[in-house]
């Protein structure tokens, strides 16, 4: 399912026909915003990779190449929706209101979280989850709760809530993803399973994970699905918008497989030259989601000044992120004990006191 050809020409495929209204109803401001989202996060993402190379981050999982899948779905979500990311959805978090420096903080090693999902400023974005697929069950439970509390299924798209959960082709092999679909179908949850198939689970190709399209699996659980060109931001937007509104109004869970490509490494610890060839990378580079949208917007009258402004915003974000991440304070050793439990705990108190005394015992004292 695709609206934009790799060269940026608008040519909906037959599968896209039923969704034309959604795309053609999107105004220029939204279309340009989605381009801006993609281009700005790429500048940030590349800055983050450089920060890791310079020793300022422990690790960075680049989103290079997956911008369209992420931006389209994030812009399709409504303000009342809740997002369960995996760990590569940097632009989704940013669109929802999370300060991207907080993502860097997680990867720098000053926190395991980075932001408070219950703070409205963060747009109901839950924390990154590093154990593959576990978040799909959390999302399903959350969506069950929305159903039990009557926060979905009234038929009012402006009010009914829904959940988007992101995962990848590698995680799709995890049992939790399958159990999440069983529970989602069983409780008819207001939920979108958004799978980014970026072709590679570190070094393992998707062909090792599945002999057929991953989107086909959800049919086995009774969950309707769409397979879309994940490098077409319009396809991602339209499919997500339609499915989220169906899910929120009582239609039950939906699934999307966005076929995209991880143009960079899995993380900065990875070396893709060991397992894939340049030909493959170059063929996907010709399908770059940002170049495609840029050509489309240019054909609709976006001028050089617009693109220059977007580039400037990307550079400013990247520079600001660099400046702020390197000056993040070190965590206080005491903080290790602070939130293991939410209520007083004898062992935590004992060990925190011991550590303080131990630190203070050194010459000069840490205390």
């Amino acid at each position, binding site marked *: 399912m695709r609206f934009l050809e790799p060269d940026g020409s608008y040519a909906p495929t037959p599968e896209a026909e039923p969704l034309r209204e959604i795309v053609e109803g999107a105004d220029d401001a939204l279309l340009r915003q989605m381009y801006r989202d993609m281009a700005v996060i790429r500048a940030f993402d590349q800055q983050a990779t450089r920060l890791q190379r310079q020793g300022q981050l422990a690790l960075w999982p680049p989103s290079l190449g997956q911008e369209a899948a992420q931006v389209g779905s994030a812009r399709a979500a409504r303000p009342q929706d809740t997002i369960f990311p995996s760990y590569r959805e940097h632009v989704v978090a940013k669109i929802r209101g999370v300060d991207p420096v907080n993502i860097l903080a997680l990867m720098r090693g000053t926190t395991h*979280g980075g932001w408070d999902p219950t703070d409205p400023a963060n747009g109901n974005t839950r*924390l990154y989850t590093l154990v593959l697929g576990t978040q799909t*069950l959390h999302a*399903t*439970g*959350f969506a*069950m709760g929305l159903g039990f509390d009557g926060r979905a299924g009234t038929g009012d798209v402006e009010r009914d809530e829904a959940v988007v959960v992101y995962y990848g082709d590698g995680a799709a092999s995890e*049992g939790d993803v399958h159990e999440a679909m069983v529970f989602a179908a069983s409780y008819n949850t207001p939920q979108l399973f958004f799978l980014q198939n970026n072709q590679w689970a570190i070094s393992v190709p998707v062909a090792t994970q599945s002999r057929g399209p991953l989107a086909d699996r959800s049919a086995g659980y009774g969950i309707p699905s769409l397979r879309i060109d994940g490098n077409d931001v319009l396809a991602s937007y339209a499919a997500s918008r339609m499915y989220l509104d169906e899910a929120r109004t009582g239609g039950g869970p939906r699934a999307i497989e966005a076929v995209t490509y991880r143009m960079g490494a899995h993380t900065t610890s990875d070396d893709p030259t060991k397992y894939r060839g340049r030909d493959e990378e170059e063929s996907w580079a010709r399908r770059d989601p940002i170049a495609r949208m840029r050509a489309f917007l240019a054909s609709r009258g976006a001028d050089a000044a617009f693109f220059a402004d977007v580039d400037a915003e990307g550079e400013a974000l990247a520079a600001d992120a660099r400046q702020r991440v390197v000056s993040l304070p070190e965590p206080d050793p005491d903080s290790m004990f602070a939130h293991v439990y939410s209520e007083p*705990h004898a062992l935590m108190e004992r060990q925190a006191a011991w550590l303080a005394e131990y630190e203070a015992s050194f010459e000069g004292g840490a205390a």
Partner: protein
Amino acid sequence: MTLETMPFARAMNAGLRRAMEEDPRVLLMGEDIGKLGGVFRVTEHLQRDFGEKRVLDTPLAESGIVGTAIGLAMTGFRPVIEIQFDGFVFPAFDQITTQLAKLTNRHEGAITMPVVIRIPYGGHIGAVEHHQESPEAYFAHTAGLRVVSPSTPNDAYWMIQDAIRSNDPVIFMEPKSRYWQKGEVDTDNRPAPLHASRLVRPGTDVTLVGHGAMVSVLLQAAAIAEGEGTSCAVVDVRSLSPVDYDPIVESVRQTGRMVWAQEAPGVASIGGDIAATVTERAFYSLEAPVMRVSGYDVPFPPAKLEGTYLPDADRVLDAVDRALAY
């Protein structure tokens, strides 16, 4: 004071019922817990009385149950999960240890995880493989979880309510062989805080310590020892994480000897940690090493061998004799 005599399983049921009456956000999840009332009937009639949205007969997927309970807790529910048997908790081990236990810490306190996981555990029921195990050490080893185990109907009634009220995840180990044992339940007065150890029998020569079904074995051993002229104190630890050491150490300071008993295998177990800690805190009072009586370090054996595997009063008394011989 309202006293009522009832079996352990019915005390659990009454405690769950009261918690559900007091807080509409409490919901029960598990396999066969609705119409059937659970394989041990602990949740009997609760679905009938509270409805299918408060008592969920879930799909048969333990990771799914715990994972969705986490999401439900994020929307403000207080899920209470029944794992059907001890050996079936492991499909959920990842969700419990990497997610449930760590979420409050990952969120730096911004969210809580008030989820209770009830696990019927232990032997003495002559069942097949995976139905008689004691996996408590795995959970006590995991930061972020609280682990408790009642030994009497009165504790069952009160501790389940306190566990549900806890804003941290609680692994609630139910000694399944005690389900049918009757005891008095005082529905007006809480016997002790959730994480308190309790001296259940005073004594001056040896301190016997354990939890769950072992407590009755220890009391039986103490009664026999008394006939032989040895005075044994018995401490029910009740909470395995955190452990309330004060009543144990206080008793050991008087007796100078301690015997720990558990059904779980001994290596890297609760008993090992308690023995080390008591040794650190009461070293100058000890007249003998802390003795440990455990299951053997083998898979729980076929039912015909459970009598050999499980610590009984004789094995406890053997340890008492060895402690007294120092």
